[in-house]
């Protein structure tokens, strides 16, 4: 545990980060900005895993390992999303959400 910092403070920080990510996810109109917001949300949840492991169950490693898996999945998801965005830009010439109707049907 971090000396002088309680678990509720860290969980407060991660929930603030999570909701900033949700705010960006809803208000942004650009695919890359939405991707950035998703990264924020994922990171907030990963910190939750790690901190709860550290404070409540310090002698096991499950939280750390799950966070490693989440990081791997997030990296794969980002690579695929970037590929899709570049492909969409080739076809429609824009990455705004309102212009991307190619994949709708």
């Amino acid at each position, binding site marked *: *545990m*971090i*000396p*002088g*910092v*309680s*678990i*509720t403070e*860290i*969980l*407060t920080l991660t*929930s*603030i*980060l999570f*909701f*900033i990510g*949700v*705010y960006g996810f*809803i*208000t*942004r*109109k*650009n695919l*890359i*900005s939405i991707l*950035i*917001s998703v*990264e*924020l949300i994922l990171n907030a949840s990963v*910190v939750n895993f*790690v*901190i709860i492991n*550290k*404070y*409540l*169950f*310090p*002698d096991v*490693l499950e939280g*750390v390992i799950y*966070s*490693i*898996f989440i*990081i*791997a*999945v*997030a*990296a*794969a998801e*980002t*690579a*695929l999303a*970037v*590929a899709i*965005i*570049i*492909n969409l830009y*080739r*076809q429609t010439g824009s990455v*705004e959400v309102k212009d991307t109707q190619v994949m709708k049907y």
Partner: protein
Amino acid sequence: MESIIFYLLAAIMVIFAIASVSSRKMLRSVVYLLFVLIGIAGIYFLADYNFLAAVQLTVYAGGVIVLIIFSVLLVHHIEMRLEVASRKKQLITGLLCMSGLAVFLSVIYSYSFEVTGTSVTTTTAQIGEKLLDYGPGGFILPFEVISVLLLASMIGAIIIAKGEKTTKKHPTPGVSHNVKMMKVEQEQELQINPILNEKTPVETE
């Protein structure tokens, strides 16, 4: 000392996260996201998880941010300003997020966490042994699955990003081409088969 560093990191992360979702310039918002990710790595360092902090720095700050910057530079003009949602929608979303945050915080502060005072330092070797452990509670199967997932996503990303161009170049003549290729392959198989049959007894010995 640690609490001062934590509050500093928390302030930096919250400020840059807000800047990242509200900045109207694409590249700047990516760089603000980079600061948030580095702040999270700092929290891992504070919590004494050195390996996780290193993973966070290499995968996120090194890999994901570079990928996103690449896509921004490929897709955008840097000077272009993003359009943002209308003021009303921003307000409604902000209120919604605030209420959600209030629910989260009320749950967090009303629950009594049973914090154990002990502080255990985990080494990288322990994490590696746990990941490759095939006994009960081991993580070798998800570890292998995640490696296959990474390979699949890498190939998928290459195929999606190449996309369309190769398929549009030859729309219909591809059929006769395929038939020819199949014939050639069959002939090659016929030629290869006797060679393979000859080889097998040698290998079994």
